[in-house]
């Protein structure tokens, strides 16, 4: 198949091996990213044990409606992403582009909601670290909660933003016919990245919005 030799690198015996290598490499990369966030989750766990009342009180001040909306947005975006990859497998590149655009759109909505949320907090004087000035919850535990909140959701939002850029690039490539049923590895890997970002949020949501 002409398509196979176009993408096959000469140190792999066949395209199947190369695709498997790419997937394994992506899992290893995602594992590394997971541990990046794990360090922060470890801090959250330790500080929650140290400041149980403050953490609950601070969690009550996050915007539950917005947080839940963001969860729904990301879960749906993952559905669209999975379908984008499936469309490429079924040789429907047009639908693939559509699904990718939808995923990216939901990602942008997510970031918009986050911006609204942060603005709300800034108005209340809730800033990270030494700049924290929320008069209603002056306890050090609350300050730590919100510092972790900003850092973890902020880092996550950065990953979402990066993901949106990645999706735009994938959509462009799909639009130009770059993906076929035999070869759509970048699309698959991009999908894995996007789903990983969703998984991180699935843990952030209860920890910062629900456990109040």
């Amino acid at each position, binding site marked *: 198949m002409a398509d196979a030799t176009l993408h096959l690198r000469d140190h792999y015996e066949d395209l199947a091996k190369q695709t498997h290598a790419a997937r394994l490499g992506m899992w290893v990369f995602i594992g590394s990213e997971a541990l990046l966030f794990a360090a922060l989750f470890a801090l959250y766990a330790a500080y929650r044990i140290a400041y149980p009342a403050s953490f609950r009180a601070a969690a009550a001040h996050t915007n539950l409606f917005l947080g839940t909306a963001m969860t729904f947005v990301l879960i749906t975006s993952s559905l669209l992403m999975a379908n984008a990859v499936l469309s490429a497998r079924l040789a429907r590149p047009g639908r693939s582009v559509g699904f990718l655009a939808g995923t990216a759109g939901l990602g942008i909505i997510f970031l918009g909601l986050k911006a609204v949320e942060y603005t709300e907090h800034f108005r209340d004087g809730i800033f990270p670290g030494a700049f924290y000035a929320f008069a209603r919850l002056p306890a050090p535990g609350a300050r*730590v909660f919100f510092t972790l909140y900003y850092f973890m959701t902020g880092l996550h939002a950065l990953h979402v933003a990066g993901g949106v850029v990645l999706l735009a690039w994938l959509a462009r490539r799909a639009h130009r016919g770059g993906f076929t049923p035999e070869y759509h590895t970048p699309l698959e890997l991009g999908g894995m990245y996007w789903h990983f970002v969703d998984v991180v949020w699935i843990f952030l949501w209860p920890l910062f919005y629900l456990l109040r």
Partner: protein
Amino acid sequence: MSTTTTPPASPGTRRIDYLNVETTIRSWLTTTDHKRIGILFLIMTTAALALGGVFALLLRLELLTPGGTFMDAMSYNRLFTLHGVVMVWLFLIPSIPGAFGNFLLPLMLGARDVAFPRLNLASVYIYAIGAVVVLAGAVLGGADTGWTFYPPYSTHTPTAVVPVLLGVFILGISSTITGLNFIVTTHTLRTEGMTWLRIPLFVWAVYATSIILVIATPVLGMTLLLIILDHAFRLGIFDPALGGDPILFQHLFWFYSHPAVYIMILPAMGVMSETVSAFAHKNIFSYNAIVIATLGIAFVGFLTWGHHMFTAGMSVFDSGAFGILSMFVAIFSAIKVFTWVSTLYKGSIALDAPMLYFFGFLFLFSFGGMTGVAVASMSLDVYWHDTYFVVAHFHFIMVGGSMMGFLAALHYWFPKMFGRMFPARSSTVAAVLVITGFILTFTPQFWLGNAGMPRRYYSYPDRFQTLNVISTVGSWAITAGLVLIGAYLLYALRWGARSGPNPWGSLGFEWNTPSPPPPHNYEEPPVITHQPHEYWRTAE
């Protein structure tokens, strides 16, 4: 990637190999050939070793007299911080995997390259950028926190903490990429017949190291990022004044830094497994034991980080848990030592330079390892923590272990990499200098630590001077040995005798290629039917 076949050399001209196929600077800077990438790492990490060594020499010079000798306390603090940072992150972590792992893995697996060659090239540039950023921090005066950067001091000190940590963060990205590449290479690019239990032991060692690299390094990256943000923007996550807990930094830091010491020693152990077989002309006493011990060290190494924190204020429960878990690592290390020694029995031992470094390693690593078990006992560590006893322990492992591994690898595979031989007598002299110099430098430090001399102090009570002087003289001997090595290896690169494909008569798989190897290693993928180093097959 083009599939070029190397044209047959016409009579009178030299065979095409990876070194002479293209000789422009541009071809080196844009190479995706794992062998050239290995050489680039070799050059950079050796330079780092030299730099870190210069810092060490200055430190030891200062310690010749009890009071200030030629520098003040602040300069001393900056120097030992830089010594630690450069040695750990610019040399010990990347050297054997980056230089020899890159060069040898595909050769040993019968592959034409690593899984992701362009990513491999990226790791070279990212390393270089990280190193430059660290050096920029050094030029700006460096940090005075020690290589461990404990807050709250590290987040309040006015020294150049941010560039140094930023550089380390970038270096971490490079080593994570290397680890990822090696894992996928080992899983997917083994040649026909190369089952997991036929992989060379050096590959197993680098594979286990790679697992640690990809899991532990991100945690370090995150932790250092938090310190940078705290220092620059008062994020305060570890600052007691802002509700933070500085001990949590130590948990995250050591979650990486304890497995990091296994990143530093496992590749050296892999080198030793190859060296002992090649130079005793005997296959390893138990291949399976080494594999199990290698994986065991990699896994258990993740469970022990709290033994660096016994005196930090950690809970008694955690201290007990980590103390018990730390004991298990020693079991696997001991299995390896016994296996190597058993390999020597009834072997035909050749005392070339790599074998001398093997013996140095065997003695120094065993001794250092045992003192590790000692300091992992909480009740003993309460006394020894932050004294020279700990300094001696980890230098026995880092220098007596890892650096010996690096030197053994350098000498064993020099002919493979460059097709030349180094002068035998000079190499013996250098090895003796390095090993005895090492013993002179670091053995007195056990006594000093036990007598109560604290680490990271530029001055000390008069009664400690004699041992300090001996230690400093030892450092000069190590330096002489290393300088000699550099000299004759550089000489051999240009004027050394041509080595032929396999001067050591080794049955490692990498020796099935010419020395230096051709650009794509193997024209036809080799078929493997047995383990490496099966010397009993060859009729003597």
